[in-house]
């Protein structure tokens, strides 16, 4: 694989934004329902649990990549040979691609339900694809730039979660702690998977980071920040809603919390919130899709510009075809399963394989 030129690389602390912005996205608006279904008012423990698991996985990813000569694509190619390796690579690429599609589809669904009933998806996605094309043509530095903006600019929205709903909070809702069995909490944790995935894009942008050894710390801090945000939102939701049933009835519990935000000059804050949320989901889509694009270029050696255009065209059609509620739910289910398999089961296997290979190499 060709070495990445220094001017295309990003500095190590920016990994914080890359990791956090990919994990923190569309899921925030309505992740409570599925977790609360199993873990009830102990759901925040499930969130902590998934945070710890992701820390372990980030550590594993770094261990795996340290033993490779580049990204995941080259590693799998080296390990399993041309056919199997590239087959696995394509599985990963489809995963990244579907993931980014699902985010945009989910966002458009929210737009239609909350803001514009008669949104013309064709035109909206066309503009969105234009934006993505413009971003990708700027290279990875611009993608990282959006990861940065997507974290920093919407930070103020976080205050609205803290200030307004907590006025109506009742801390009694949290008690008794550990009321649910470990199985239930673990089931809740499994539901969090689709919300926290995204950190695995690290596999692809790893060669694009300067001083890679220093970046691991930042990746962990990024995940810590994500976990803390999710815990806070989860706790606020539990104490704000008067009953668990209310969370279960809300597909987008976070969004519904915005309804009580009231300022002297602004009512119905959710409009501002949803519009600003495009800044949050944009890096999400960007990094995921960039990883898919990067993977395709690495495997097939096609010029990046062609890959960008074809990927965007395919995405455009997929987003426009999957509009039904059932289809969207199916897609999310597929991605949840996909993520469980490819991220949470496959990465440890890969870690073991590289670990054993390393031992073997040292012995001989």
């Amino acid at each position, binding site marked *: 694989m060709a070495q990445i030129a220094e001017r295309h690389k990003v500095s190590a602390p920016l990994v914080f934004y890359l990791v956090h912005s990919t994990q923190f996205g569309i899921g925030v608006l309505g992740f409570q329902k599925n977790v609360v279904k199993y873990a009830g008012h102990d759901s925040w423990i499930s969130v902590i649990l998934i945070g710890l698991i992701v820390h372990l996985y980030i550590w594993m990813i770094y261990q795996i990549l340290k033993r490779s000569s580049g990204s995941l694509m080259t590693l799998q190619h080296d390990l399993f040979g041309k056919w199997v390796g590239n087959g696995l690579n394509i599985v990963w690429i489809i995963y990244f691609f579907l993931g980014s599609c699902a985010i945009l589809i989910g966002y458009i669904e929210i737009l239609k339900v909350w*803001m514009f009933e008669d949104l013309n998806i064709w035109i909206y996605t066309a503009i969105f694809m234009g934006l993505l094309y413009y*971003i990708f043509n700027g290279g990875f530095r611009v993608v990282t730039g*959006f990861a940065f903006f997507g974290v920093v600019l919407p930070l103020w929205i976080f205050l609205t979660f803290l200030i307004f709903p907590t006025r109506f909070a009742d801390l009694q809702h949290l008690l008794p702690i550990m009321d649910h069995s470990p199985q239930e909490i673990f089931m809740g944790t499994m539901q969090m998977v689709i919300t926290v995935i995204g950190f695995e894009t690290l596999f692809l942008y790893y060669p694009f980071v300067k001083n890679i050894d220093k970046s691991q710390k930042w990746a962990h801090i990024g995940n810590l920040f994500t976990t803390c945000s999710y815990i806070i939102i989860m706790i606020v939701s539990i104490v704000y809603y008067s009953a668990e049933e209310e969370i279960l009835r809300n597909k987008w519990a976070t969004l519904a919390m915005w309804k009580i935000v009231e300022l*002297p000059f602004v009512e*119905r804050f959710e409009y501002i919130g949803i*519009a*600003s949320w495009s800044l949050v989901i944009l890096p999400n889509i960007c990094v995921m899709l960039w990883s898919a694009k990067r993977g395709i270029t690495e495997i097939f050696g096609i010029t990046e510009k062609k890959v960008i255009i074809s990927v965007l065209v395919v995405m455009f059609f997929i987003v426009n075809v999957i509009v039904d509620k059932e289809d969207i739910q199916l897609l999310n289910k597929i991605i949840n399963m996909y993520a469980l398999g490819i991220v949470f089961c496959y990465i440890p296997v890969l870690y073991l394989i590289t670990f054993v290979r390393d031992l073997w190499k040292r012995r001989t």
Partner: protein
Amino acid sequence: MSRMYKQNWKRKDSIEKLFAVFRSSTDFIQYDVNTSHIKYWISYFETLVDVNILNENILKPIHSKYWQSLEELKNILPVKDIFLTIDTDLMKEKLLEGFVMISLSEYGSPCLLVNAKLNKAREVTLPEVEFTVIGPKEAFVESIESNINLIRKRLPIEELRIRTLKIGRLTQTRLAIIYIEGIADEENVFTVWQRISNIQIDQVNDSSYITEMISDNHNSPFPQLLDTERPDRVVSILAEGKIAVIVDGSPHVLIGPTTLVEFFASFEDYFLNWILSSFFRIIRLFAVSFSILATPIYVAVLNYHYELIPTDLLNNFVTSRREVPVPPFLEALFLEGTIELLREAGARLPTKVGQTIGIVGGIVIGTASVEAGLTSNILLIIVALAALASFTTPVYKMGNTIRLLRFPFLMFAEMYGLLGIVLCFCFLATHLLRLTSLGRPFLEPIYPPRITDLKDAFLRMPFSMMNERPKQLRTEQPKRMDEEKSRENKDIDE
């Protein structure tokens, strides 16, 4: 022997040709003079030559002193720039710069070239575009010598480097690249040098020509090089490690590499207390965002999200818009267009007439259009405030960009409301992320985030804290001063 003759003949021929060409212009003077001891020919352009120098320093010694050859004459004449040459190209160049040529025969060589340039430059005056209440009151003028003098006077150090070259096939404009060696990054200097020498153009009438030719992205509305008319600003920027380009005939000096935030910093910020200037910078930042977003938000809210406005406020909006027959978008476009019209008309007219235009436009058209029911008065207030806010940008070129930016935002707001505004912001952010100034990121220190450079971005921290030069410039001497000495901490009652 024959070869020498041939060379001599060739040279003679080209001098003849040179004169033949020059004589077709009526301001070219050539005549022969018989003094008491020798006969000589003298030629010059009367429009380029200072008559005083010619009379006092050239003709007077020629006639009053005894000399036999041009070498002797060279030692007699009390003029600084004087040389003997047989090179006809040099003769041509120097004659066109205002030198006087003296020879002993009509087409003979060598010839003596004596500097008698007529220097007509405007006096150094007050800065008008970047006026500050306090601080130095000098501004650059059109002459490159006088501009370099203004800079050298303020930087009497040996490390100041000035490299000159000529640009423009027809205008032959002189251009100087100025930097401080040992501070400015060699790579940056090389980039500037290379881009300027690659310019292919026939005329350079102002430094803006150079800006456009050497900026990284020609298709961007954002200026990628800062221009200033203040020598103090240039000096401060050279000390930071940047590079200045002076173009002869232009009172604006170019500075690069630059960043976006620099365009919103007035040089007066450094003359005021840091708390005050930080406050003013924040106000300016607010003004810029207001100026871009105010009308688009009005359109977005009234078109799509009137639920956003609390009921009491909504009453006012409804009342003011009750008689307006057009949708908010057209209404906003109409008013914004009027403001642009007024600005453009005011800019093209002399100051006194311009003021009248402002009064007529601002008061008469504004109130009349509200009374006629064409616009709502709330929008009139918003548009007027936005126009006012756009004039707070200290750099004129950036002010123009800011005014242009609100139109795409308006269009997106009309399409998707607040969502459209965010979408348009994303396009803008991508554009800014992609921009570079002389190969260095334009959005720094926001992205890539560099905390040390943020000390002089949105806020202006005290000088004692700004002990490092901007990281973006990759200066060869990153420290400005000794940190320990600059921050002497004393305990209370010590």
